[in-house]
């Protein structure tokens, strides 16, 4: 059940009505109903994996209590290791078994040893990486004595399985979401209106930007042999917009839906393509995952304490693990490594904490230096996205190589312009341009439509909403799966 489907609309209308009008008076009923609704939502994907979700929830619920109650540190650690081990074990089997089996077999084969590993035809349970990380953050926080465990299974289960964030995040923290689950919620008109506009913006990003760019990015990547180097770069840039529109659009819709139910989720994106450096990009892209790795991996490893080499080691570890989190393929590992390489100079020159503010914060337009910095950062991320999108590492290297070879070939630029003019078309380019303008205007807000809610008179604002809605209707083609569902 995709957020941008009529099935979801119907599901949500029913959930919203029952949630506020039937179960609204008692928090316990409201939470129980939301938990069941979340299970129904998950069962729509594949009901068989519902048992895995429930098992994972039970495991972390019990582990949390046992860790908290354990009398000795040794026992606390044992419960933690048990919980983490089983959680990662599931993730390992479902997501990484074939990858490791295949990689090991190839390695041994290179050494002349022939093996007959059995590759399993495993279906990856949707959202497993997300709900596993929800659960892990909970047990880590209890272990680190940041929170006390929840003794109410329904509340805890709702924290793990809350349907807006169940299959593609944002990765929530128990410290942030659990208190909201446990506290009675009041319907807020302002919050609901904000939720509706954020859903609208998320829909626009997914349906128009992501799905619109996807068809051309897919064509260029799938038939890369037929295109010149600069068109290949355009394909990678389109993929950059596709993945941003897709994932941040999903996050916006998840946040908007949650607001309609009285919840505030963690922010996941903060206009990453207006970053002036790679460290800034990573503070703005998939924030909930970056901060998860920072808090539960980078800092426990020692973070930036312990000298330069120690910091570099930790940085490489979190980027490689982050790449690996995205998928069981060497392409994701190289993508992580490449981002680590991009990041290293900032760490060495201690400029990784630069640009903590919003670009051109007190101005309408960026200055030349900022513009160049943003362009350079964008181009670097586009090259990294090639590895993310490519079917193999060899393919990605050859793709990048062809882009670089064509950099000084005027014909390659001409071919790219022809592709843009006749295949992508002026309307799509115009929409992309308007999208970037709106994002720029709204870069100080949670989402661009908030600027209009705050500063534009009601009729003009509503006219803009209708225009966006019409564009969404017109462009909503064949529904494409959200990219992050596969992670």
């Amino acid at each position, binding site marked *: 059940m995709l957020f941008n489907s*009529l099935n979801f609309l119907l599901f949500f209308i029913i959930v919203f009505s029952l949630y*506020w009008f039937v179960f609204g008076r008692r928090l316990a009923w409201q939470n129980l109903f939301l938990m069941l609704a979340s299970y129904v939502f998950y069962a729509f994907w594949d009901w068989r994996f519902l048992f895995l979700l429930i098992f994972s929830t039970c495991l972390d619920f019990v582990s949390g209590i046992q860790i908290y109650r354990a009398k000795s540190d040794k026992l606390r650690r044992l419960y933690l290791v048990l919980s983490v081990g089983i959680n990662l074990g599931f993730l390992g089997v479902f997501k990484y078994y074939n990858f490791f089996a295949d990689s090991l077999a190839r390695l041994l084969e290179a050494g002349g040893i022939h093996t007959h590993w059995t590759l399993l035809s495993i279906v990856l349970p949707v959202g497993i990486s997300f709900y596993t990380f929800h659960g892990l953050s909970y047990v880590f926080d209890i272990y680190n004595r940041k929170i006390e465990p929840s003794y109410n299974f329904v509340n805890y289960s709702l924290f793990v399985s809350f349907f807006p964030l169940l299959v593609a995040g944002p990765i929530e923290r128990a410290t942030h979401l659990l208190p909201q689950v446990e506290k009675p919620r009041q*319907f807020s*008109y302002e919050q*609901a*209106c904000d939720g*509706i506009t954020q859903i609208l913006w998320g829909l626009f990003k997914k349906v128009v930007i992501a799905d619109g760019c996807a068809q051309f990015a897919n064509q260029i990547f799938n038939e890369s042999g037929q295109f010149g180097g600069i068109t290949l770069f355009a394909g990678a840039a389109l993929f950059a917009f596709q993945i941003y529109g897709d994932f941040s659009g999903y996050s916006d819709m998840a946040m908007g839906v949650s607001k309609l139910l009285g919840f505030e989720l963690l922010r996941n994106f903060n206009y990453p393509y207006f970053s002036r450096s790679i460290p800034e990009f990573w503070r703005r892209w998939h924030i909930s995952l970056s901060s998860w790795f920072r808090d539960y991996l980078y800092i426990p490893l020692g973070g930036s304490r312990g000298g330069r080499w120690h910091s570099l080691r930790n940085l490489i570890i979190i980027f490689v693990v982050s790449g690996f989190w995205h998928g069981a393929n060497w392409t994701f590992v190289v993508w992580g490594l490449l981002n680590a390489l991009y990041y290293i100079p900032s760490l060495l020159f201690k400029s990784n904490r630069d640009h903590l503010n919003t670009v051109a914060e007190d101005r309408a337009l960026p200055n030349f230096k900022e513009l160049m910095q943003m362009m350079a950062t964008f181009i670097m991320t586009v090259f990294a996205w090639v590895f993310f999108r490519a079917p193999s590492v060899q393919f990605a290297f050859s793709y990048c190589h062809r882009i670089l070879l064509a950099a000084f070939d005027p014909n390659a630029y001409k071919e790219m312009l022809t592709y843009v003019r006749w295949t992508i078309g002026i309307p799509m380019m115009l929409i992309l341009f308007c999208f970037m303008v709106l994002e720029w205007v709204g870069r100080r807000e949670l989402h661009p439509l908030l600027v209009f809610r705050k500063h534009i008179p009601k009729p003009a604002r*509503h006219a803009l*909403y*209708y225009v966006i*809605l019409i564009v969404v*209707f*017109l*462009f*909503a*083609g*064949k529904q494409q799966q959200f990219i992050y569902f596969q992670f």
Partner: protein
Amino acid sequence: MKRFLINLLLSVLPVAVFALWLDWRVVKDLRHSNHGDYGVWNDLYSGRANKDLLIYGSSRAWVHIDPVVLEDSVRMSVYNLGVDGYNFDMSSLRHDIIMRGVPPKVIVYALDGSTLFKRKDLYNQAQFLPYLDDDALEKRISGYEGYSAWDARLPFVKFIGQYRVLFRWFNGDFSAGVPADRYRGFKAQHVNWTKDVDELIKHQKQLTQPLDTSSIRRFELFLQQCRASHIRVILTYPPEHILGQQFVSNRTSIIRIYRSLASIYDIPFLDYSSDTLCMDKKYFYNSQHLNDVGATIYSRKLASALKGILKDAPQK
């Protein structure tokens, strides 16, 4: 909450009213359009396609067989019901609609390598928009990927994502006054073979066309029903360029199946799969499709053969 719901309703209401009106208006115009596929579906539903001789098949029927050439020769009214991109499954739907009116006397079925294969996706979905309220059509297309049950049940939902149709409607392309771009379903392609086609063929990989057993069964059933209804069926395999013949590895066995069906049901099979036309690029615009020059020559050859068959052998 009350304020929120009222405001939401007031915001949604104009959109809903406009969407309802747009749905009604566009469907109405599409049902009166002569344009492209809409023109053919409209002829089909209004009975204008119920002619003496009907041509069934895919695009290899649609762009290959000229009804005018056939009419001159066989002295019967002719309509070309070839449907681009689809196989027997869609032709049989068109046949079912035809059978609601006066049945044809003769059906010429133009075969190709994928006639007895069923495609998965709902190709050119826009052509079905005006007639989703027809149960037979809706039931048939519901088996294809890309179909949504909401399309037929909620107003306007079918137009979500169909911006090209809406833009063209807005542009007046579907107005009743716009002349038809096909004549009785047929449209000759005034296109030549280019280097791009050679390039495409160079990169094309050989494939084995999977046969759909249910399509074969239904094709046989169709032949039996036609016989019971005293409709003469004639099979033909239009020319395909020699360069395109190598890509379907099981092409010979597919043609053998057609021959065997023709033999079992005692129906003529006019096989042009190895005709001299197949050797010359000037008659084609790609490996599977004849251009206007090739189509005229093939239509004449077919007409002449049909004339002989229809004159010599009386209806069984």
